[in-house]
């Protein structure tokens, strides 16, 4: 039995260390997913927390100034200019922005909210929703239907 006790003790130590590392990792890097609407309503509570905000890039709002990029994000795609729920974002990170980041793209911005309501992103991911998985009906008004073997 002695061997099994020794083995068990080592296992407990290993798992303990890993759990401790994991816990530290979670506190260090946890990020709250928020909608733009929620961010604007959070007020002071939003400061200091790492947030990940999902939204759509406003047409023509991207301004590049050296490595600094600022743009405006909206809650919903479509008629963006009129959407009142908007968030000004400034990105000043090291990595270049992805090629998919452009007007109307869906973007995920990670960062913190400033006191003046500007969101300082440390990371921006973008997906061009219409490209990876296209939705043809948005383009032509046609709906794909499953043409099940009627022949």
């Amino acid at each position, binding site marked *: 039995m002695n*061997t099994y006790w020794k083995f068990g003790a080592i*296992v407990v130590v290993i798992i303990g260390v890993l759990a401790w590392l994991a816990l530290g*990792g979670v506190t260090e890097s946890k990020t709250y997913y928020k909608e733009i609407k929620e961010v604007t309503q959070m007020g002071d509570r939003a400061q200091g927390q790492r947030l990940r905000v999902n939204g759509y890039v406003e047409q023509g709002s991207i301004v590049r100034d050296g490595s600094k990029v600022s743009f405006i994000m909206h809650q919903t795609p479509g008629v963006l200019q009129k959407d009142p729920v908007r968030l000004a974002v400034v990105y000043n990170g090291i990595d*270049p922005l992805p090629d998919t980041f452009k007007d109307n793209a*869906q973007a995920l911005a990670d960062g913190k909210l400033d006191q003046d309501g500007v969101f300082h992103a440390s990371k921006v991911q973008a997906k061009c929703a219409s490209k*990876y998985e296209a939705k043809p009906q948005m383009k032509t008004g046609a709906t*794909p239907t499953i043409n099940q*073997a009627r022949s």
Partner: protein
Amino acid sequence: MENIGALSILLAFCFTVYAVVASVTGRLKKNSFLTVSAERAVYSVWLLVTVASGLLIYSLLTGDFRLAYVAAHTDSSMSKIYKFTAWWGGQQGSLLLWSWLLASYSAVVVFMNRRKFRDMMPWVTSVLMTTEAFFLMLISFVLSPFAVLEAGRGNIVEGVGQGLNPLLQYWTMVIHPPMLYLGYVGFTVPFAFAMGSLITKQPGDAWIHTTRRWTIVTWLFQSAGILLGQGWAYAVLGWGGYWAWDPVENASLLPWITATAFLHSVMMQEKKGMMKVWNMVLISGTFFLCIFGTFLTRSGVVSSVHAFAQSPIGKYFVIFLAVGIAATVVLILERLKYLKSEARLESVVSRESSFMFNNLILVASCFAVLWGTMFPVISEALTGEKISVDAPFFNRINIPIGLALILLTGIGPLIAWRRSSLESLRRAFFIPTMSAAVLMIALAFFGVYEHPYALVSFGLCMFVTATIITEFWKGASAIRAKDGIGLIPAAIALTHRNTRRYGGYLVHMGIVFMFIGYTGAAFDLDVTKEVRPGGNFALGHYNIHVVNIESGENDTYAWQRLTVEASRNASPLGQLFPERRLYKASQQPTSEVSIRRRLNEDLYVNFAGLSADNQRAVIQAYVFPLVSWIWIGFWVLAFGTIVCLIPNKVRLSYARTQVIGVEQKHATVQK
């Protein structure tokens, strides 16, 4: 035509259901007519799915834009090869590819083993066909690849199509998905055999023996898939990263980890008859993680840069996983008494325990990655707030795990079975430990001590390299002394005697090279500059001179190309041509980075576009030390895996240690 395609998928679905019912009934009623008809149904499923795939490929190649799938994933200007790869460019097509691969695997398995395991095969067939039925159900009723664009009553022919994302038009991306899928799908086969042997109450060695090659080949495909993905991210995405702990990347890593654990713990069962339950759990876990990975990639449950649309298939996957896992757990619990261990753990310092620690650590890593990936979903369910964890979490836990694994890679193979004495350990590990210590002191002297993890990692890599070299050296010099041949022919002869052992060492060597490459990331340099043509900037010991900016366009895209000259200490190193493209069909800009690849470091230049005044080029330049070793490591790993597959020159079969105290350790040799 789309009707024939949809019809053959539907028929194939019916045949899979028939195959499941017929093989189970045939087995229970001892009706060999039914069993054989189930086998034939398996071949028919393959034929039907092949027809469907062929039709989809034909439609893609000829540009039949009436089909929603073709219109969404190709355009008329794309080259033939990318039109073909659009087969797996989207949701429906990739599910069809999954089904086709599984159908092919099933047909091969049934053909090869139909006479061998008469009592087990019907169950194997039914497990394979149940999985196949699930995927065919998805593409025949939920997401048909043959859906036609319709408005009112007429079909719509939509001009030229929307094209494949240009970022994906790169050679590694062409083969990355099928490689990963070959890996994902392949684990269905060992899982089916495991279940078959459980159901038929077999002691549990036959399935391991039969599926050993499958598992190794599948593991190789999976490794290749992951590495191709890394190679693509590195060369195409423009920031030089190859791993970001994105949910979809994690999805591919999870089954790879459990499969690696399985490949190791299987040896415990073969040699010692231990860990039988554990092996069942690992192979089932691997299979379900493969399905889970497909689910994660395909359902959009966790948001990801790989960004596949939200789709209705998620709930079907959840049901399939829940039912499958429940059935497997019940079956394993039911059959526990047939899976008793034949030997006991004798010492903490033994080969057995090193295998167990290897398994423990791998599974812990798998669990941590799974937990981190699913954190948003879990936290939302528990607290109502969606919280995600990022790369720091994964790195923090997986870097120590990786280092511990590398250490075990060195220790495990040299430690004796059952128990090891301190004296033998000292003898075996003296040279490796000394060489690691010397290297670490030397590196620390040159300033690497600022990165403690990197220092430890290089030390451990040296340690493992030394153990592997001593193993080859010892064996090869014995053969050289006996047969009077050179050292290299002797090493080859040695490998041929026990391909699995020495192939395994080569795989370990590949992993070591990859770790060297990953460790190099601690010393990355980067700079972002706006430079006019004729200007210069410095990065590390490189000087980069911008020569000019050209532009032009062709049928598919418009381009701007930068010419830069790199030099070091005033000696020229040649020109680099980073390029920026704007694809016309999709209005998608892409960067074509230019990389000067060398063994010690890569110089990586990205042209990020023109500055606001159109006068200066925005350049991001990086130095990535040692990154090439990742790709070299992969080739070594692949070579080692192939060596493992070569049959031994002499077949070795080890007698098992049966009762403690009675020794039976002489190998019996069969010619």
